[in-house]
């Protein structure tokens, strides 16, 4: 039997609810279950930092089992950075321990008067005073909470940034794994929720063990034969992407003013290996091991990953690898999303360079960058303004065109001018400028599952839709999205079927994702998002790149967008049609 644990932080009431078979079948778990709960329970017009917003922590049906990478958990809420429904998932070891409590999801609602943390262990749930860790960084918080509970427990918590409701704040677990995007750490902070500490003992139940193990074996064989999951990510981690993106001219530099970074040699994966690498870090059940433990000036830290290397590197004009690592460690310590933090600093640098911002912040100045990270996390001085995210920052200085964001979320490290499909994926992403809603870099650059011409727009809307739906479905399982570089829809559907005992065809599996995608879209529409918000910054549409192997290119968005809406079965305004909602079985839920 699967159930939800509900904790009201205002009243202290703790209750359990059953999840119906119909809901489980339609939404599976993870992102799907979380989105369904937020859709039903959080008014789209709710202020994200008010007591009316809710936080859902969810796991998937196979979390904690032997499926590759089945150790993730999902957090869903309304984002204070974008105003959209938002979610993120994270690896490490917190997810399986959360699953072992025996719940599919934990819903946190209301607001506590004082700082608290949740201690959930072996059938018991307590709301405890967190004043002794309030103000502490992630590592200190984790250590002290484990000292006050049990060493074997796992901790997800916020740092000083989340406490101060910085819109770039994230949730950290296992010290350096993050639910990074969308400022969900600020939602925790707004509820005075410092941490969730879990220690469970239940095993994940699998409906058909033999079939499940056959499916797992097939997946492992595929992962073991794929050049990315077998070699590149294992040996160099995600920093392997630095050279790849540099070669094709989409390693965006200096707040996306260029697609080529002339000092890239200093931050390539190979340099990373030579200078800062200590050993790989492996999340629960992962055969890929893309995580990196690094050391600079004697300090051991997790990462930086590719996106962080880019955000504090080329994006800020910085090639000082040690400086990037320090900025990354500081983000991990304060609880900040590295992509949005780096990119917002890049935005501030351009504002300053153009004379729109009085404070002198120069591209390439890594010391200043590190100082700004601290100020953002502590919500001090200019950090208070940058910590609002690039959109609000650039608007404050009356130059919104300088913010490289979609729907308020800072873009990651792939310049869309050199990858038309990824550009469309950014523009239509339900949580804003994000590469994880659909990783078109796969087909357009890495040739997975098949190579497509990155400069062409023809056919891209169909591929974007497919990858968005599949990604959403994988987030319901929840498996790491790196598996999608190798696995196919049939393999995911088979894993799900064997786990649940409910027969999912590949088409039905895809439909799970489509259902989630449309529900998110509907929520955003009701929160006020329109077709005009499916837009990229003007720079990408009008200013061709001047250097690198994508030079001369701009994004041709409008035509792709029209086709995309048609492909999705949406109106011209970008709203899901009645027939589609009925077909997906969410018409009643939506009305």
């Amino acid at each position, binding site marked *: 039997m699967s159930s939800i644990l509900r904790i009201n932080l205002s009243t202290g009431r703790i209750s359990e609810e059953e999840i119906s078979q119909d809901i489980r079948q339609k939404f599976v778990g993870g992102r799907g279950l979380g989105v369904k709960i937020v859709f039903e329970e959080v008014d789209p017009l709710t202020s994200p930092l008010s007591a009316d917003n809710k936080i859902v922590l969810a796991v998937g049906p196979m979390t904690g089992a032997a499926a590759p990478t089945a150790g993730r958990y999902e957090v869903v809420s309304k984002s204070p950075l974008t105003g959209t429904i938002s979610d993120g998932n994270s690896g490490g070891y917190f997810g399986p321990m959360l699953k072992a409590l025996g719940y599919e999801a934990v819903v946190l609602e209301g607001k506590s008067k004082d700082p608290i943390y949740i201690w959930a262990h072996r059938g018991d749930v307590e709301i405890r005073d967190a004043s002794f860790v309030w103000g502490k960084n992630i590592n200190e918080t984790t250590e002290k909470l484990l000292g006050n509970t049990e060493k074997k427990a796992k901790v997800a918590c916020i740092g000083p940034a989340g406490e101060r409701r910085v819109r770039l704040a994230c949730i950290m677990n296992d010290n350096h794994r993050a639910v990074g995007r969308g400022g969900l750490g600020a939602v925790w902070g707004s509820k005075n929720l410092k941490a969730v500490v879990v220690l469970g003992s239940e095993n994940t139940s699998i409906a058909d063990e033999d079939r499940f193990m056959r499916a797992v074996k*097939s997946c492992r*064989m*595929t992962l*073991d*034969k*794929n*050049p990315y999951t077998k070699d590149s990510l294992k040996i160099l981690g995600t920093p392997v992407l630095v050279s790849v993106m540099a070669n094709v001219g989409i390693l965006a530099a200096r707040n996306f003013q260029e697609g080529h970074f002339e000092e890239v040699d200093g931050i390539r994966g190979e340099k990373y290996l030579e200078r800062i690498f200590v050993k790989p870090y492996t999340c629960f059940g992962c055969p890929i091991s893309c995580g990196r433990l690094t050391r600079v000036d004697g300090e051991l830290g997790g990462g930086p990953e590719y996106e962080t290397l880019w955000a504090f590197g080329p994006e800020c004009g910085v090639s000082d690898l040690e400086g990037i690592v320090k900025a990354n460690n500081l983000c991990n310590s304060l609880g900040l999303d590295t992509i949005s933090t780096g990119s917002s600093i890049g935005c501030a640098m351009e504002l300053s360079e153009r004379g729109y911002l009085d404070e002198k912040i120069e591209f390439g100045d890594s010391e200043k960058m590190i100082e700004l990270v601290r100020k953002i996390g502590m919500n001090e001085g200019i950090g208070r303004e940058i910590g609002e995210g690039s959109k609000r920052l650039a608007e404050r200085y009356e130059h919104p065109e300088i913010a490289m964001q979609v729907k308020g979320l800072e873009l990651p490290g792939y310049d869309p001018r050199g990858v038309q499909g990824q550009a469309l994926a950014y523009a239509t992403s339900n949580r804003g400028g994000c590469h994880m809603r659909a990783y078109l870099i796969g*087909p357009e650059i890495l*040739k*997975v*599952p*098949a*190579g*497509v*011409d990155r*400069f*062409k727009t*023809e*056919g*891209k809307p*169909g*591929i974007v*839709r*497919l990858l968005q739906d599949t990604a959403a479905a994988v987030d319901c399982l929840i498996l790491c999205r790196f598996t999608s570089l*190798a*696995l*196919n*829809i*049939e*393999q995911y559907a088979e894993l799900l079927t064997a786990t649940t005992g409910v027969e999912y065809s*590949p088409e039905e599996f*895809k439909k799970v994702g489509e259902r989630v995608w449309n529900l998110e879209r509907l929520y955003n529409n009701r929160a006020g998002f329109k077709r005009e918000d499916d837009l990229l910054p003007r720079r990408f549409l009008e200013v061709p790149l001047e250097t690198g192997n994508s030079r*001369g290119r701009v994004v041709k968005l409008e035509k792709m967008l029209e086709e995309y809406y048609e492909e999705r079965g949406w109106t011209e305004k970008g709203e899901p049609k009645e027939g589609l909602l009925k077909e997906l079985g969410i018409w009643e839920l939506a009305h």
Partner: protein
Amino acid sequence: MATIMESILKVEQRTKEIKISPEELAKLIDHTKLSPYKSTKSMKGLCNEAKAYHFCSVCINPYWTSFCAEELKGTDVKIATVVGFPFGQTTSKAKALETEGAIKEGANEIDMVMNVAAFKDRNFDFVVEDIKAVVEATGGNPLKVIIETGYLTYEEISQASKLVKEAGADFVKNSTGYGPFGATIPHVFLMREAVGPNFGVKAAGGIDEFRDALRMIAAGANRIGASSGIRIIDSYRWAKHSDWLIEEIPCRLCPSRKATFKSMPKKIFQYYKLKCVDCPYRRFNRFYE
């Protein structure tokens, strides 16, 4: 003969029309592992993969023939052993001996390398005799002959393919994977044109995903050599969920664009590059749109 670009455009069109299931595609693949440093564990893995995916064969170095034959006993997966690999510069006698040994140890098919040096010297009699020596040693088992197209002009590819057929082999194959080019559409297309419809054409080298494999089939190949067989089949299962066959700019598929000074003889490099000059489709060969 169709011009180079015409063959590419024709094949791109045909690729869209191919109807083949993942299982049928797997049956066309020689699951290949020819690196010099692979361990027993790795070769055992190759056999297990071939069994699981029902590939046509495992394509291996002679050293591994008996091991793989044992691993694959009683399955539908064949053993294809390479001979005179990778340069084809051993003597005919040595190739024949290698072949006899491989067959004795359990090989069902032989992939031999043509003597490209003799061919370049226009010593065609020797080339044919060299192949014939191996044909005899196969004892009736299928023989594929690698002509290494990356060292040849279009005219030579056509001629070499005809010699392979004349010598009594069963397949003409484009590349060892160690030469300057992998499989390209014009080369495979030309090989098929040269040998006609009732002869084997194997495309090998650089076939990493299903689009590459489908293109080669559309160009005329009826066997695919690939070390990425699993990736090809697994990725092919995505094909039915969206249209992945977005047209490429044809020059990206042309050997002239792929030719690099570093990896090939200077004359051949010039030959391919100069083809661009007279190509009626050269307007496509640009970076900017």
